[in-house]
């Protein structure tokens, strides 16, 4: 039997010392250029008053102090929380239900899996434009369908109380496929013998799902939770196209306010401060995600 080829290992002390850096170098360079340096610049910018990129005056913590008295910031923050609470659990619950349904022999199973995943692949702007047509109060497909069924028109995007719900509905539709795929992967790793054993012991389908499947999916659920929160905090394109933050301020979220402050108001320093608040929230959830990952590893 021939021996497998061995990777040559640098023998000299210098070679051994340099090897890790050669492998890490390209990734580190990219991270430094496109992540670390911009973050440092953004932090510096948040302590400046500047209308354009480049030149500014140092104003200490003034931008952060202004956040406290900014009504639009508070509204955007509240809307962001409502949006996240509305989209995250719903996407995950529907994703899990679909994954469970498609995790068994079913005609056209592959096709269904692909169909549910398609909205996740579609560009946010395209989804926004198409949905603005579908949910148009006067000539949209949604209201036409309701009228055919003898039901009244719904002000999907024109009423402040409905617009956020419609937005959540659209975003859930785009995200369900992602949750479904992740859950499908996790469901396939649930040991069949445990489920069979429970069946033999007399556990019904619901009891098997609640007592065995769901607990075994807990690490995946934790990771999905954090990922979905991150997605929701970053949601910009669909909202920008679909509602423009309106009617009124009803769908203005934090990331939109960052964009508006930077490019519409030309307040780069203030926008950077707003961005850092968003980063702080994302960081909190990223830490939670790390903890969830560790928990998942220990579980496995």
């Amino acid at each position, binding site marked *: 039997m021939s021996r497998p080829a061995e990777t040559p290992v640098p023998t000299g002390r210098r070679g051994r010392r340099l090897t890790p850096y050669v492998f890490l170098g390209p990734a580190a360079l990219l991270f430094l250029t496109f992540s670390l340096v911009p973050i440092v610049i953004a932090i510096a910018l948040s302590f400046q008053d500047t209308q354009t990129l480049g030149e500014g005056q140092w104003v200490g913590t003034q931008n952060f102090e202004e956040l406290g008295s900014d009504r639009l910031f508070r509204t955007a923050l509240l809307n962001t929380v409502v949006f996240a609470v509305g989209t995250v659990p719903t996407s995950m619950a529907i994703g899990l239900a679909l994954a469970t349904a498609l995790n068994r022999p079913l005609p056209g199973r592959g096709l269904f899996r692909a169909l549910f995943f398609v909205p996740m692949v579609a560009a946010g702007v395209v989804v926004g434009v198409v949905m603005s047509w579908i949910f148009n109060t006067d000539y949209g497909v949604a209201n036409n369908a309701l009228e055919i069924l003898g039901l009244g028109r719904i002000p999907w995007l024109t009423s402040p109380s409905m617009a956020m719900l419609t937005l959540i509905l659209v975003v859930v539709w785009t995200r369900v496929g992602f949750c479904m795929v992740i859950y499908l992967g996790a469901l396939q790793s649930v040991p069949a013998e445990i489920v069979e054993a429970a069946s033999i012991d007399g556990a019904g389908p619901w009891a098997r799902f609640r007592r065995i499947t769901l607990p075994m999916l807990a690490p995946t659920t934790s990771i999905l939770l954090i990922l979905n929160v991150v997605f929701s905090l970053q949601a910009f394109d669909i909202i920008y196209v679909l509602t423009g933050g309106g*009617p009124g*301020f009803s769908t203005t979220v934090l990331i939109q306010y960052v964009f508006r402050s930077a490019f*519409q*108001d030309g307040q780069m320093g203030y926008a950077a401060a707003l961005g850092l608040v968003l980063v702080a929230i994302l960081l909190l959830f990223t830490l939670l995600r790390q903890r969830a990952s560790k928990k998942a590893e220990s579980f496995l």
Partner: protein
Amino acid sequence: MRRPTVGRRQILAVAGITMAGALAACNGESTDTQHLRLSSWNIPPDLVSYQKIADAFVADHPGTSVSVEVTTGQFHQWFITRLAANLAPDIIRITPQQLGRYAANGSLVDLTGSVPEDYRDDWSEPFWAIGQRENGLYGIFQHTDNFITYYDKQVMEQIGVQPPTRLEDAWRWDEFLEIAQEVKAATGHYAFSYGWSGSETAYRWMPLIYQNGGAFLGEDGLTPSMDTAEAIGALEFGRSWYTEGLVSPSNMSKSGGGHVDFDLFNTGQVGMALTNPEAIASFDEARPGEWGVAPMIRNTGEASDLGGNTLAVTKSSKHPELAAELVAYMTSRENIQTFCHDGNWIPSRSSLAAEDIGYADHEDVMQLFIDQGTTIPLSMVKAQSGEYFSSLNAVFADYLDLCLLGELTPRETSEQMMEAMLSVTSR
């Protein structure tokens, strides 16, 4: 036969040459050619038109070249980032509402020395004021557009109304509301649509304030003046459109981007549309021969939307004098005539009438737009092309939306809008 092999050194050499070539191409100029870049909105006939005019300029200026590019994405994001990298195009096509900030913060070049002195005489005072500042000329208004009233001929026939054709006979607000009620009854849905196209075009509603004798900003172009009785009266008028069901709630200042105004007219849900010349192509396609035009509505005063574009030279330009010369060339009478003919635009020069342009179709409609352009007030132009307008427009969009929705009364809207406007202008 042994096939030739390519070693690492050869790959690196080829990559190096390719990279150098690519970088040279990005730079876009050789050492002995003065190259200019002009950026325009992605409107195919205009891109062709700009290149055609630029080629004629290049033919008269040996050793120069001009390329036409497309302004992509959200304008301010696109422009600010390019200015920061000193990579903005030499010449930019920019709206009056976008120009103010950049004229004030030194991002644009003074064109005064490059523009023939007699140019000024062929622009109306408001149109010239778009680019003119005390310390220089930062843009030349190339073409304009505004709002008039489109109507459904059949609906007007049904209600027995003969719409006016001359500016001096334009419907006043009370007449218009009376007719709108009848139009609503005829369509069974709504009366009219308004030509907003997303929150960044909320300013298109501002003429209503001026029609009522009010102003968005004071005479200095800086002091908020949305607290006057006239401004509040205009808000009340706007609010009534929705309380009386004359306008669809999907047609508002902030939400519902795209061309909801066209769609509502084309689907017969409204019998009138207050909007700009872009509607012509849409209405011709969906409802050929079924629509007519009347002047924009008025009240105690006249006003219409300030649409159109200005050409300006950016501080990133390596050849600002040549770029300024090209702007002057593009805004010559002959070239504005060509540009407006090819793109179906309204000329900014006062001496050009519809018959001079030779529009392919609807010469009477285009002449009405040209005439309507004379009603755009100077004070509105100064307000909209001012330093803070981009931010003020965002505030206007927010509070106008809340007023039209009925979330705030016109008086509350006025108070809260003033507070927000003052926080912008006191920066």
